[in-house]
């Protein structure tokens, strides 16, 4: 018996970011693991207490850099509840659309990185190619590829440009064919199946006990999806199914994400049709002056105009690409939030690492951790 602890990280191709997986091994067998986080802890919750409600959106893009829109959406929902504001319906649909595009982009990014870890290079190139098409769409209505700063308390910054929905439909048509190609590359590959089947099994009971959510939970057969269970924005007005698998292993998580992308395309087609036929405002009216970002820049004088504003507490939870994300915003009547607390799905999914890694071999760590879809920015915040 020769047991030892090894560090996988913070600089390791498996980590997909900055974190450290300390592994206790005996030969090739994993005896114990201890994830070490905090290498990308940027104090986002603390900085948020020092910023305007709309300025926090800037930080949200950087919180999860592969799913910026989803985190903007999450924070804005919480902030709107804390400030007692209601966005117009068109803004809700645009937010839904943004989140679904982001879900596809995030899953494609995951696919590119995950399959590359298994040694297949072409999925990375295919994935990045298709993701760039989605980023081009984002760029056409937000102006940025990754850090959008698009959503605002009370709506969204600007309306969609002319001809956007047609361009978006073309991209969707292209993508839905590519998903088939992805599947053939992976599920048709004997090597892929042998490396992934039966690995990293986490049962439904363990998932619930350890707070694991998202594709990991749905791959264990539990159809929990906040878009269905607690619909926000326009999700109660669109039709889709919750993707599910029963194997609870790496292949199951792969299948769930692939199916989720197809369901996202389905949602997007409905949302784009709605947007075509329902023009309207994208910002709520009668916003307090210091929130009126689309109309005028916030001057220093705005700070002096201390408007009476009702206090409140906001809570929002969304189904982010990685799982259940939640925010708790405390509004004490000032221009800054008093406290913002985020729940990151990756953070919790990683905390259960001991449950799905112990007992497997060292060579199984890249596929298993790849299937968790780690985004350190959001887990460390």
């Amino acid at each position: 018996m020769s047991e030892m602890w090894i560090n996988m990280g913070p600089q390791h191709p498996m980590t997909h970011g900055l974190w450290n997986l300390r592994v206790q091994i005996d030969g090739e067998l994993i005896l114990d693991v201890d994830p070490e986080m905090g290498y990308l802890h940027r104090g986002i919750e603390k900085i948020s207490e020092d910023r305007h409600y709309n300025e926090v959106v800037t930080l949200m893009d950087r919180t999860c850099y592969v799913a910026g829109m989803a985190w903007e959406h999450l924070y804005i929902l919480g902030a709107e509840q804390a400030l007692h504001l209601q966005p117009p319906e068109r803004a809700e649909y645009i937010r839904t659309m943004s989140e679904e595009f982001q879900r596809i982009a995030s899953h494609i990014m995951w696919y590119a990185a995950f399959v590359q870890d298994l040694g297949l290079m072409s999925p990375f190139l295919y994935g990045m190619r298709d993701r760039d098409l989605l980023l081009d769409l984002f760029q056409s209505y937000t102006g940025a590829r990754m850090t959008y700063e698009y959503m605002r308390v009370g709506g969204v910054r600007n309306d969609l440009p002319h001809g956007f929905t047609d361009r978006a439909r073309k991209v969707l048509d292209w993508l839905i064919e590519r998903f088939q190609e992805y599947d053939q590359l992976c599920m048709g590959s004997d090597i892929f199946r042998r490396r992934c089947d039966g690995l990293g099994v986490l049962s439904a009971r363990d998932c619930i006990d350890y707070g694991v959510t998202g594709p990991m939970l749905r791959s264990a057969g539990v159809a929990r999806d906040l878009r269905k269970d607690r619909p926000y924005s326009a999700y109660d007005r669109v039709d889709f199914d919750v993707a599910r698998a029963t194997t609870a292993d790496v292949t199951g998580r792969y299948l769930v994400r692939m199916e989720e992308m197809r369901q996202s395309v389905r949602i997007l087609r409905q949302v784009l049709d709605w947007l075509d036929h329902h023009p309207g405002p994208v910002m709520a009216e009668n916003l307090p002056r210091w929130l009126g970002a689309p109309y005028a820049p916030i001057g220093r004088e705005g700070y002096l105009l201390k408007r009476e504003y009702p206090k409140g507490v906001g809570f929002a939870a969304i189904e982010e690409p990685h799982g259940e994300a939640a925010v708790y915003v405390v509004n004490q009547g000032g221009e800054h939030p008093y406290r913002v607390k985020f729940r990151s799905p990756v953070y919790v999914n990683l905390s259960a690492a001991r449950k799905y890694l112990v007992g497997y071999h060292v060579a199984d760590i890249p596929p298993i951790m790849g299937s968790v879809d780690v985004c350190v920015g959001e887990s460390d915040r």
Partner: protein
Amino acid sequence: MSAAPETKGVRGELPGAGEAAVPFVEIEALRSREFIPAAKEALTSLIAEQGQSKLIRPVFNWAGRNSLFPLHWGLACCAIEFAAAFGARWDAERFGVVPRSSPRQCDLMIVNGTVTWKVAHKLITLYEQMPEPKWVIAMGNCATGGGPFRTAYSVVPGVDKLVPVDVYIAGCPPRPEAMLEGILRLEDLIRLRKE
């Protein structure tokens, strides 16, 4: 051919070689089969003529700048754009830039994201593990000066507080084109290197 005089300073002449310029452009122009014997001959004669140190530097710089191996690690958001630059659309590998996972195989560290105090000493360790000569690119606003997180309690306000930085790239995050531009600027710097 009117462009030839302008490009001479960039591609042909070697600033490090002084007035007795090494006929280096010819070596570069040679191809495949002829290359090795011709280079061997040129090198032997040049070493005999000018001494070793004058010759090795230009050859080394030429080889180094055309095969920059950055360290393969992702700190934060810029890492995603760093990855996108190696994707199908930008294909950074055509510049000879290939990310390597071990710092011992690298000569370029692209600091692509926010550096926290917790990772600071690990970044310095990685930098020290890289063989000389080595370069550092601070990619994005966070690595340059802390970016939107500069007031945070856990963030290093600029990676130049820890390691010497050669090229700064602005942007939050910089587009892949900007990253490639930064690498080309670094190649210019290497070309001008004297010692």
